[in-house]
C-alpha cells in the first residue's frame, strides 16, 4: 500500500495542476474578454462541451456487445425523445436512466 507522504504529495500535485487549468485562463481572458472571437467561443463552448462529453461517456460503446449496446442506444433515444417532448431536464435524465437499467436487467436475465 502507498505511503501517506507519497499520497499527500500525489493529491497536492493533481490538485495544483487541475486548479491551475481551471483558474488561470480567467486571468488571461480578462484582457481580451470583449473581442468578437472570445464572445463567439463563449457562446459555442457550453453546447460543444456538452456534445463532446456525451460522446466521451459513450466512448466504450461497442455494437459487438448487444447486451450493453442495446440498453445504451435505446436509453439515449428515450432521453432525447422525452426531452424534445417535455423539456424537463430531471424527467429526461431519470426516464433515460430507468430505461437503461430496465433493459440491462432484461437482457442480462
Amino acid at each position, binding site marked *: *500500500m*502507498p505511503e501517506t507522504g*507519497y*499520497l499527500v*504529495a*500525489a*493529491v497536492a*500535485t*493533481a*490538485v495544483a*495542476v*487541475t*486548479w491551475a*487549468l*481551471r*483558474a*488561470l*485562463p*480567467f486571468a488571461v*481572458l480578462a484582457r481580451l474578454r470583449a473581442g*468578437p*472571437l*472570445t464572445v463567439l*467561443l*463563449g*457562446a*459555442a*463552448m*457550453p*453546447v*460543444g*462541451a*456538452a*456534445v*463532446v*462529453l*456525451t*460522446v*466521451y*461517456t459513450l*466512448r466504450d460503446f461497442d455494437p459487438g456487445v448487444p447486451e450493453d449496446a442495446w*440498453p*445504451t442506444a435505446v*436509453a*439515449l433515444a428515450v*432521453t*432525447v425523445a422525452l*426531452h*424534445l417532448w417535455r*423539456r424537463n*431536464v*430531471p424527467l*429526461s*435524465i*431519470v426516464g*433515460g*436512466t430507468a430505461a*437503461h*437499467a430496465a433493459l*440491462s436487467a432484461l437482457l442480462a436475465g
Partner: protein
Amino acid sequence: MTSPAVDAAPRAGTRADLARAVRDSGSVGPGAFPTGVAFGVLVAQSGLPWWWASVFSGLIYAGSLEFLFLGLVTAAAPLAAVAVTAFLVNLRHVFYAFSFPLHRVKGRLGKAYSTFALSDEAFVVATGHAARTFPGRRILWLQACIHLYWAGGATVGALLGSALPAGTGGLDFAVTALFTVLAIDGLLAHRDVPVPLLALGCALAARFTVPGQMLPVAFASFAALMTVRHLLRRRGEDARA
C-alpha cells in the same frame, strides 16, 4: 421555509439557499452520486482507508482524473506521471473560461472556490439556458451541491466498501443523459446547428484516431474549427462591405 416572500428577500438565508441549490442541481445528482459511490468502492477495494476516497474526491474533484489517479497511486507512479496525466485529462477546462460567468461571483474567496469546483457538470449547468440569470451566490451554492454529491457518494461507497459491487449498476448512464439534455437545450436556445455538429465530428474523430487523448484533442480541434469559422465569416463580411 421557501415561501415566495422569503425567496424574494435579498438575503434569503442559508436554508432557502440550500433548498434552491438542491433544485438547481437536481439534474446532476442522479449521475454524480452513483459515480461517486463507484469511485469510493474502488478506493476501498484498493486497500486504502475509506477516508482517502473523501480526500481524493473532495480535493482533486475531477471525475475521470480520479479514476486514473487511483490507478497511478496504487501502482506508486512517479509524481511527474501524476502531473502529466492531470494536465492532459483536465486540459479541456481552459476552454471553460470563455463561457463560465465567474464575473458574477463576488469576492476573492468566492472566485477561488468557484474555479476550484468548476467540474464538467458545474460548467454545463451554470452555463445552461436556465442559469443565465443566476447571481453569483446561487452559482456558488449550485457548485457546492454538485461537489457534495460527488464527494458524498465517494465517501458512502468507500464506507460500504466491499459490500457493494464495483460497478454503478448502469446508473452511470445518468451522466450521459445529463450532457445529452444540456446539449439539446443549448441547441434549442441558440439554433446554431453547425456548432453541435462540428463538436460531434471533433469528438468522434478524436475517439477513433487518438482514443487515449480523446478529451484534449476533441476540445482543441473544436475551438480551432470555431475560430476558423469565425475568420471565414469575417472575411465574407469584409468581402461584402
